[in-house]
């Protein structure tokens, strides 16, 4: 075949490949457009509107000025950071410890893995309801145990602003650590046995092995888990909605619960209505906040990589 003919043939095949690629990609692109891009643009459309689901009124920059002076929203942002901090501080170490313990070659570990993972598959609204009974002041299971152990007065877990964050954090850790634990176990399974054997020959004890081998070699998984945990913690609201409805006195009101209340009109009274436009603006701001936190985390993680 001549050089020209060969070029023509290559071009023809290229075009054919391109058409196939376009056709193969089109379902995914279509779904991306419909399920992700369009809703995002739809949300932006209402940022400058009062929209109650039935009628929309253009209000210019009013939603922005409202947001700036909306103390309930900004306090909910603060509560979200507080909640995320508590959750991460407890859930990651707990998941890691359990993963290390359940990764040992001991009989029955798979049963414990299943038990610890089970809360992850329970609907968060159901777990919220279960914990309502556990945390009840007067006839709650937790207070019953604490009183039997000699505690004087029952703790108002859900009705005291001093204790509600503890209750909410316990529920979040209970509901999520099994999932992260499995990620860690999966990561540990990838680490070669030879490395551990070499460490053993060198005389490393369990703690040294963990800090010098397991943890560094888990770092890629740890980074992913931390990222998931951070974004997850900032977006949590379902279980809190069932457990405390953001109370008492807005003490457990997190930003996505506040946004949900705005958009879906939870707790509507006679003269308030769903505020989809304002809620859309708050959603954009919340997304920016979560995005900034994620970027900050990634930068820190990169620096840690350099140090390690």
């Amino acid at each position, binding site marked *: 075949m001549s050089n020209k003919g060969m070029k023509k043939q290559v071009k023809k095949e290229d075009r054919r490949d391109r058409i196939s690629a376009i056709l193969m990609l089109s*379902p995914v692109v279509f779904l991306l457009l419909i399920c992700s891009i369009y809703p995002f643009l739809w949300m932006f459309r209402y940022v400058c509107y009062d929209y109650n689901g039935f009628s929309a009124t253009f209000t210019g920059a009013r939603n922005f000025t409202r947001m700036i002076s909306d*103390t309930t929203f900004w306090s909910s942002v603060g509560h979200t950071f507080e909640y995320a901090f508590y959750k991460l501080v407890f859930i990651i170490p707990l998941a890691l410890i359990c993963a290390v313990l359940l990764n040992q070659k001991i009989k029955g570990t798979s049963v414990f893995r299943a038990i610890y993972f089970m809360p992850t598959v329970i609907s968060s609204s159901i777990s919220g309801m279960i914990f309502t009974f556990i945390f009840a002041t007067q006839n709650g299971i937790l207070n019953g145990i604490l009183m039997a152990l000699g505690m004087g007065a029952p703790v108002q877990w859900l009705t005291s602003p001093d204790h509600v964050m503890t209750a909410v954090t316990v529920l979040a850790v209970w509901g999520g650590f099994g999932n992260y634990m499995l990620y860690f176990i999966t990561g540990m399974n990838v680490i070669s046995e030879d490395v551990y054997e070499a460490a053993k020959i060198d005389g490393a004890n369990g703690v040294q092995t963990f800090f010098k081998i397991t943890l560094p070699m888990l770092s890629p998984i740890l980074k992913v888990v931390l990222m998931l945990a951070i974004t997850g913690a900032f977006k949590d609201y379902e279980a809190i909605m069932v457990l405390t409805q953001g109370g008492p006195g807005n003490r457990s009101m997190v930003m996505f619960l506040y946004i949900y209340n705005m958009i879906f009109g939870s707790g509507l009274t*006679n003269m308030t209505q769903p505020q989809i436009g304002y809620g859309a603006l708050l959603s954009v701001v919340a997304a920016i906040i979560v995005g900034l936190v994620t970027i900050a985390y990634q930068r820190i993680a990169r620096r840690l990589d350099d140090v390690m």
Partner: protein
Amino acid sequence: MKKAAKTLLLAGLILSLFMGPVFAGGSKESASASGKTVIEVWSEDRHDMEYVESKVAEFNATNTDNIQINLTIISDNFRNMLQMAFSGGTAPDVAGINAIPINMIADTGIAMPLNDFIAESPEYQKVNDPYNQIYEGTNSKNGNIYWIPTGMRSGVRVIYNKDLLEKCGYTEIPSTLEAYIDMAKDITAQGNNVFYGIGFTNASPFERLLEMVSEVSGIYYYDYVNGRFDFSGYKPVLEQGRRFFTENIAYPDQQGVDNMRALFSVGMFALWSNASQEAAVFTEQIPVQGFEWGVAEVPTLTGEVTGALETTPSKGWGIISSTKHPEEAWKVIEFFQSEDFLKGYLEAGYCLPSTDYMASIIDSSKTGRLADFALKPYETVYPKPPAINLSGNDYRTVFWNAVMGYVDIDEAIADLNTRYNEALDADVASGAATRLVISDYDPLHPDQGTPEYLTE
């Protein structure tokens, strides 16, 4: 070549699999296989489903107008579902729209005015007394009637454990809020952590007692004469209400409504308050165990009733404007609001009769404890204040936070006055709301004034 064709075929197949469901569906057919005109009906009420479904089946089998009702119950997110269906061209012909704010159905044109249909239906007028059930801002706006209630939910009542009260030396519910709180305090003290004077839920607790105490004391959140929100009047009620917690009177937990009902039903506290739905709750859903329970009027600040107690008109049907069969849709509404349908409905105790005619027709001995919640002369429907776009918590949440001591009462009132009126002014300026003014407003007869809607 063969490979390329296979690839193209596979890609096309994948594409069609994804796109297929997107374009599936098509237009809604409004005639059944038997040639009947199908009227789609949506309701958000699940509690009366059994009765309504049985009557609909009866109607479908016997009506001579060749109509078939297709009843769909949507108990969650009804407003949004209706709005989405209307936008998407799949709205029902008839819907129970009594719980949807009037601006969402009237200003948007979603519901059709029923004036002409009502005027031409003497039977409907006889049973439903529509012209005496027009509540401005609730079911009617600017002379257009969008639905007529077929029943009423009473205002809030005190529901009490007679045995516990007697055990503690009380035989009746005091008429003043102060005495009521004193009694609750005494019962809690005598209960010695075994039982308590009063219990509150965490679901809109302010609405279930203190707001209604305020109403019958002539205190309301909207100043109809000046067309402004005014929360200043609530201060004495909030100060009294705070005692429930500063003096450790209330049951030391606020759980969901059903949890608290269950605790009341086993005698954990003596006083509970809610509207007429409790009649069915404490006889069927969560039956009271081992004691007599009574129903009394809510106390007032001074012992005298100086304002109307708010009732809620219920079970009202409207025609959705996109219907292709308005005549048949009206016939369906006539059926739902017929004497035969309503007699069984009201005697089953689903709600109180809203007209004198139906009250005279039903056998009240069949309604059970609902009879204890019969409407009082000072109960009525308030004209709806403007629906506004409010930032932050609504007044019920803020006031309960004040009662619990999380916020200062004066600060709470100042905050609400500012936020509500700023939102009202902004909404009126943007055209999203109108300012309701009733210059001849009477707190004992709020429904009898002359409403005006101002655009400034």
